[in-house]
């Protein structure tokens, strides 16, 4: 009964994903929030494995669970863990209700897109994701990572190269912006500048 096992895996990892997500927004301590994010990412990785997307699961753990959250933790530690921002005070009035409304609308849009889509009617969700595979048809005999690699170096080789330019820009930009020269004669003379 592969199906039952799949459902059980889905339920457990889904619970982890949702629990982690809730933990991110409900924890007062930023470090706990970041750790909840890792839990959520791990749940997503398990979901990827159950969809046989092994490479994605791997990347999810290494890049998101590893690198990105560690980066978050670095920033939190550098800024000071104990300096909790006062989030109860609203900087802009009406900001929170508006955020909730737009969030719900976006959720509705995504869900509507998923379930009302495709010629399938009640099976809309199937139609939404499985209409046509433009990539090389998934070959059961070939490992997932290998197919992905081939695709990356044939069909998408330009995108792969363009990423190099993107990374160069990011590096140059980051280095230039954090250079501290001239910080002593900072000009704050303009009216309307809301610093200080």
């Amino acid at each position, binding site marked *: 009964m592969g199906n039952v096992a799949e459902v059980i895996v889905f339920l457990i990892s889904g619970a982890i994903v949702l629990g982690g997500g809730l933990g991110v927004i409900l924890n007062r301590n930023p470090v706990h929030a970041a750790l909840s994010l890792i839990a959520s990412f791990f749940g997503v990785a398990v979901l990827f494995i159950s969809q046989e997307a092994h490479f994605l699961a791997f990347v999810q753990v290494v890049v998101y669970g590893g690198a990105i959250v560690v980066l978050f933790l670095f920033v939190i530690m550098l800024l000071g863990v104990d300096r909790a921002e006062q989030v109860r005070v609203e900087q802009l009035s009406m900001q929170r209700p508006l955020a909730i409304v737009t969030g719900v609308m976006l959720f509705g849009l995504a869900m509507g897109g998923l379930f009302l*889509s495709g010629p399938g009617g009640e099976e809309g969700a199937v139609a939404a994701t499985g209409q*046509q595979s433009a990539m090389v048809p998934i070959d059961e005999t070939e490992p997932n990572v290998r197919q992905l690699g081939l695709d990356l170096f044939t069909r998408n080789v330009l995108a792969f190269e*363009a990423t190099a*330019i*993107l990374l*160069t*820009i990011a590096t140059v930009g980051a280095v230039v*912006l954090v250079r501290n020269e001239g*910080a002593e004669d900072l000009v704050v003379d303009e009216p309307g500048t809301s*610093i200080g």
Partner: protein
Amino acid sequence: MLALLAQTQVQIPEIVWSVLWPIVLLSIGGVLLITATSISPRLRVGSFPAAMTIVLAGASLVTLPLIWSKVRDGGGQLPVIADAIRIDAFTLLVTGIMCASLIVVSLLLDDYLRTEGLDGPEWYVLLLMSATGGILMAAANDLIVTFLGLEILSIAVYVLAALHLRRTKSQEAGFKYFILGALSSAIFLYGIAMIYGATGSLRLTDIAQFIASGNSAGLSPLTESSLLLAGMAMLLIGFGFKISAAPFHLWTPDVYEGAPTPVVAFMASAVKAAGMAGLLRVFIVAFGVVAEDWRPVVGAMAILSVVIGAASALGQDNVKRMLAYSSIVHAGFMLVGLYAAASGAAQTGTRSVVFYLFAYAVMSLGTFAAFTLIGGRGDQNHSLSAYVGLSRSNPMVASLLAVLLLAQAGMPFTIGFWAKARVIIAAANGENYVVAAVAMVAAVVAAFVYLRLIVTMFMISEPDEAGEAEASGAQLRISRSGLFALGIAAAATMIWGLFPGFGGDWFGEATRALLELR
């Protein structure tokens, strides 16, 4: 291991290097520039980075006719690198705009950096890379490439906006632009995912084919694929932010005001042209079949942009903010053209947008070149009062700026007139009389804004005030390179104003290239 390698038959896609010269020159040139200046610090100071940028952009411009002759022999379409990008007349036109913008901005930036006491080839490196991103975006036949182009274009400009490290206003501009831009990019990417889910492909031409086959089977995307609709909406938000169309325009005035003025010239010309080019390619090529579905949204964005832009520009006292709102009006006009293209007047509508994005690039480059010159040290003279009596202290700059402002207002015999007229005619062809009327009224309101600035420049003020104005005007140190840049833009405005078909039918060719693909 070797055995495993041996069994793999990798079909490496054919790469036609000879048509990729602009992309190669600009991106590799940028890397070379930063390497050279890192190795030899002597090259950091002086005009070497600017000169190299101008040479690279000029060389790319020179290759365009050669590439075009190759493309024309290939039937007007050249799929390159596994069809990820298309080199056609439209791509080449946008490449030309990018290179021209690079040249003008480098001319301005060289003197600007010297007056501000800043150095650094990084400005030019980021400009070169950003232009590469813009070209990729215009050429892309693949949504991933579109996205990468968009990001390369934008991230470089976020940094450029904040690159005047001593001015908090510049930092603020960069930060605002970055936060809002990152959000819009995320929405854009989400949209791409939805489009992939709905159509099963990222290639624009495949998406068009898929939708067309669904259409002929009697399936309307409006009722059958809300996933596609959601994706299109999200892409429209991402592009709308880039071209600063209402209601995604809120960043524009703050960023234009705070960012270094030469960078604003780049933003208004190259970034907007590339954003609009990407929007045109994605929506005309991939979603042209379902134009009925996105048409109302584009129409609403167009009307909102022209109305909000024109109305807000009226109350501004800072010329950079004023022109920021005017750029929103211009974005609205381009969307009016796109709306017309979607409602029956495909040929005239698309052509009007293509011409408009060229015209606006020329006009905005010139206008912001003049603002750079007048702004002076520390970007200080951007209030309207700094322009009083400018015609007497600096008659040359004042009259060239007046030409450019009249062009933006849509004065006959300037490029701006033809741009606006063609959009309105296209809208009338598509029987969109309401949109056309709103756009015309907004154009009149916006014209008042430009005239107000012109009148201020040529105003004969009270004796004591005039003395003061001339004192502030006399301090203006007009650099030769800056004046040259301003002159080029003003000349282009007049040349294409008097002979709108000057230099051959590029705009028609570019339109054909886009429409052929659907």
